[in-house]
């Protein structure tokens, strides 16, 4: 790729288009090598899954009573990662947050691929995956209907609605930008973008309906984003299992989801802005604000950890207290303290404005948050199952190579899809950046002044 042209401190509409469309020019070998690496890992993971389908779940480490472990942890982790996209694209849109325009497309794209990754795990977790359709609400041969009192059925509705609405919202935002790409492209790319743009021409008639629908979709997506992780949390909270059966799970999971999702956005955007040469569109101001969201949600998550411990102590249920004692000081206690260090202690560094705009430090902090949030889900899900009501059933769990490779494959799948998208479709919304050009100009000017100093 040619060196990124620096846009001036007063970027125009044309500068924005040029910077974004330049990213979509044909990529070099390094890019394709990266894509090849990701999908090779996916193929290896696919091989392990095929072996699991053929042999049964016995090839995993799942044994009674720990029948939910890494697969369900991955499911909850990826659904959580998906949350920041809709937070940034819908909730912050309704609040008219200025800094969202440059980051929302990447966050929304991350949402789509994270939900697509999460959606694989309930299937991977099935012993007989060819019966996945049993989750759908239709009567079987004995006219036995699905039980709508089961949280697993709510989950199927919530996650599939979330995927559909996020995809529609994302597609709507993309249409005007793809029309721009269509004008600049040549050869097969022109045909590709012409088909995807569906004849968009930016007429007043089109904008009138588009703006209204976009606002209403944001209004619909806002409660949806809060509901999805609440429903996921009820997969656990509705069970009477100690360590799961808690009323704080919905807000606790939603805060954790936004925390991990925004951290993942930062983890992806920091290298991406450098590799794609879009430093002038994704400024320190954007990262400063994203880091503030991470800090806020870290404090909410820390508060939830404290509340959870307090409720267990105050309620006085000995079984619940034993579960929490095991969680803190049992054989897997180290995982709990890794989680507390990554989610509650390390993000406190973000109180420093200097660290919030030090992108290397910020990147490292968000990696820790990702690790911490994965462990949080594992500690809650698998950890709570090891020691149940019946001491005779107590057991441990050790993941098998199959589970580890499928987990690695899920990260490769997500990163591969995201990388593919970033070079073929506009990773930054040109339309919205143009709408908020005044704020972009201020941010670019601030960055230049800081760099000069």
């Amino acid at each position, binding site marked *: 790729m040619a060196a990124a042209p620096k846009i001036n401190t007063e970027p125009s509409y044309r500068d924005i288009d040029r910077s974004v469309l330049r990213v979509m020019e044909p990529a070099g070998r390094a890019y394709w090598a990266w894509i090849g690496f990701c999908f090779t890992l996916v193929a290896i993971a696919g091989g392990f899954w095929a072996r699991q389908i053929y042999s049964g779940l016995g090839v995993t480490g799942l044994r009674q009573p720990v029948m939910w472990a890494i697969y369900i942890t991955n499911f909850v982790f990826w659904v959580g990662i998906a949350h920041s996209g809709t937070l940034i694209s819908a909730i912050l849109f309704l609040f008219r947050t200025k800094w969202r325009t440059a980051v929302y497309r990447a966050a929304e794209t991350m949402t789509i691929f994270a939900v697509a990754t999460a959606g694989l795990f309930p299937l991977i977790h099935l012993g007989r995956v060819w019966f996945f359709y049993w989750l759908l609400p239709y*009567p079987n041969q004995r006219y036995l209907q699905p039980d709508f009192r089961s949280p697993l*059925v709510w989950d199927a509705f919530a996650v599939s609605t979330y995927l559909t609405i996020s995809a529609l919202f994302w597609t709507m935002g993309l*249409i005007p930008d793809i029309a721009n790409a269509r*004008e600049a492209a040549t050869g097969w790319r022109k045909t590709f973008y012409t088909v995807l743009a569906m004849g968009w021409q930016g007429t007043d008639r089109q904008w*009138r*309906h*588009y703006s209204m629908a976009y606002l209403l*979709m944001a209004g619909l*997506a806002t409660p949806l984003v809060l509901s999805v992780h609440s429903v996921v949390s009820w997969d656990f909270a509705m069970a009477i299992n100690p360590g799961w059966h808690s009323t704080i799970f919905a807000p606790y999971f939603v805060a954790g989801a936004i925390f991990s999702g925004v951290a993942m956005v930062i983890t992806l955007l920091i290298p991406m802005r450098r590799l794609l040469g879009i430093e002038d569109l994704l400024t320190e101001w954007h990262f400063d604000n994203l880091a503030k969201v991470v800090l806020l949600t870290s404090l909410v998550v820390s508060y939830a950890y404290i509340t959870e411990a307090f409720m267990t102590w105050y309620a006085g249920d000995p079984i619940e207290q034993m579960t929490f004692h095991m969680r803190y000081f049992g054989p897997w206690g180290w995982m709990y303290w890794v989680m507390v260090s990554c989610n509650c202690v390390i993000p406190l560094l973000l109180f420093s404005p200097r660290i919030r705009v030090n992108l290397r430090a910020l990147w490292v902090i968000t990696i820790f948050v990702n690790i911490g949030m994965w462990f949080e889900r594992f500690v809650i899900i698998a950890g709570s199952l090891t020691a149940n009501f019946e001491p005779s059933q107590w057991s441990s769990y050790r993941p098998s190579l199959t589970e580890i490779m499928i987990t690695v494959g899920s990260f490769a799948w997500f990163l591969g899809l995201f990388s593919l998208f970033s070079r073929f479709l506009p990773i930054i919304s040109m339309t919205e950046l143009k709408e908020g050009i005044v704020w972009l100009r201020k941010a670019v000017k601030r960055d230049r002044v800081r760099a000069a100093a």
Partner: protein
Amino acid sequence: MSTIAIISSFADDARCAHAIEELRAAKVGDFNTFSPIPSHKIEHAIGKSKSPVRWMVLMGGISGILTGLAVTIGTTYEWRLNAGGKPLLSWPPFIIICFELMVLLGGIFGFLGVLGLSGIPATEIALGYNGRFGEDRFGIVVRCDEGDAARVESIMKESGAEEVVREGV
């Protein structure tokens, strides 16, 4: 008298909106605008009512709630599962299903509504469309009688058009 098209381009939406207001006051021909961003100024100048897509979203949302109620209540009566003598209909979980279907169908209706009302997918290029109208220029295309052309051109130029071009229809 034959009809012609006058295509004008503007550097910003304020000038474009001003030209639209002048054009409406003069009552000459009908017009279409192009812009790289949605602009409230242009929307106000055109003076059309709010998009009916909102009613489609409402209809989708109501259909979703009704579908949710039908599915949950219907299947409960189809297979009566007595759980400890509790009431047959469990409203709290049913609300979740209704809510999810409300959002799902509301969103789908809204999306299809935009496509239908905006005339996309469109295979034809609108008269006077130019790639720069997607990039950084705001355009007005006026269809009028040849006799009114000079008047329209002067309105455009006085409103600050950068370029005014005549084209046969």
